[in-house]
């Protein structure tokens, strides 16, 4: 924590990636005399923006929040969620009041970041957009955001991960922002539901953890039937979504090529992930019930390649 001298600003960075409740509680205690400040600025990746959102909520502050993302994946600047961990378990704050009042988006932050970080964050955006599109709670508005995001991801992700092309970075920053807007309405589904325990137990970054099951989830969801459908809008309605995705050239084969080109390992044994049982048992039930197809334990196991 550092004071900013003549401008009475305060810099707070006393928290780790994937912040936990303890760190928030501590920050609420430490940052006293809140009347001294007139605005909150959060500069950083999803964790930092989530931390600022949580701080504002827990300290009952009415200061406005300006979010400046430096990575482009979670779209946290455009959502009313904040992910926090308690005893290794993911908790999601979901509160209208924590949506930042301002988002300042500058894709230059993403240029020159490490390739693996770019692959993870971009896959988070991509999966959020895809999951939002087929989510039970999707709406016309959220699907519109999702489709725009999916098209941008499809056209830019490979170049974004492998080069410092400015246009690709701008488009991925926009894709991430749109995916955030999409899930702010619809919430995510099974790949996200499974990802949280992979991150806490095995330390796999969020976007990578989410990507591990997206290909097989796509396949499983596209085979949804009347028997296991969770979306009350009906089977024809849901099947039409997969036709739309197919028309966007998003299909099972697409992901194999993609992971190859962005150098993302999706074989869980190679990543040291051994306890699928634990992951299936700790699946986030809320998000799982937002998946268009009801997934039993066996189907959950089949979502991973080993």
């Amino acid at each position: 924590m550092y004071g900013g001298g003549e401008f009475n600003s305060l810099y707070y960075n006393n928290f780790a990636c994937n912040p936990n409740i303890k760190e928030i509680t501590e920050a609420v205690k430490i940052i006293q005399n809140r009347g001294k400040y007139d605005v909150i600025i959060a500069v950083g990746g999803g964790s930092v923006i989530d931390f600022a959102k949580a701080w504002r909520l827990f300290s009952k502050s009415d200061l406005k929040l300006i979010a400046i993302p430096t990575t482009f994946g979670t779209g946290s600047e455009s959502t009313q969620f904040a992910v926090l961990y308690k005893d290794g378990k993911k908790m999601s704050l979901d509160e209208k009041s924590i949506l930042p009042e301002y988002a300042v988006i500058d894709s230059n932050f993403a240029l020159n970041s490490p390739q693996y970080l770019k692959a993870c964050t971009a896959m988070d955006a991509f999966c959020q957009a895809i999951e939002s599109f087929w989510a039970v709670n999707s709406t016309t508005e959220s699907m519109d955001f999702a489709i725009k995001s999916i098209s941008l991801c499809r056209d830019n992700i490979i170049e974004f991960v492998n080069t410092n092309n400015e246009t690709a970075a701008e488009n991925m920053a926009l894709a991430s922002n749109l995916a955030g807007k999409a899930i702010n309405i619809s919430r995510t589904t099974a790949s996200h539901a499974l990802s949280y325990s992979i991150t806490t137990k095995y330390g796999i970054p969020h976007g990578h953890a989410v990507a591990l099951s997206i290909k097989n989830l796509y396949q499983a969801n596209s085979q949804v039937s009347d028997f296991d459908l969770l979306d009350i809008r009906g089977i024809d309605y849901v099947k039409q979504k997969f036709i739309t995705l197919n028309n966007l050239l998003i299909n099972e084969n697409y992901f194999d090529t993609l992971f190859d080109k962005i150098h993302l390992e999706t074989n869980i044994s190679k990543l040291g992930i051994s306890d699928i049982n634990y992951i299936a048992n700790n699946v986030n039930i809320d998000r799982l019930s937002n998946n268009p197809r009801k997934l039993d334990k066996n189907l959950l196991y089949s979502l991973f390649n080993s």
Partner: protein
Amino acid sequence: MEQINYNYKGAINNLSKIMQQETFHKPLIFCGKKSFENIKPIIEKELKRVWGGGI
């Protein structure tokens, strides 16, 4: 929610615009450990530019 800037250049310019528009000058800044060293001087410089030598 007000969304600023879709040309993706100059986060700092846009931050300044917001600060000026709302007459903010005492920010509480959350930042990552890694970005702290890079970000602090930029924001300080900008605050100085916007608000001059003092408030």
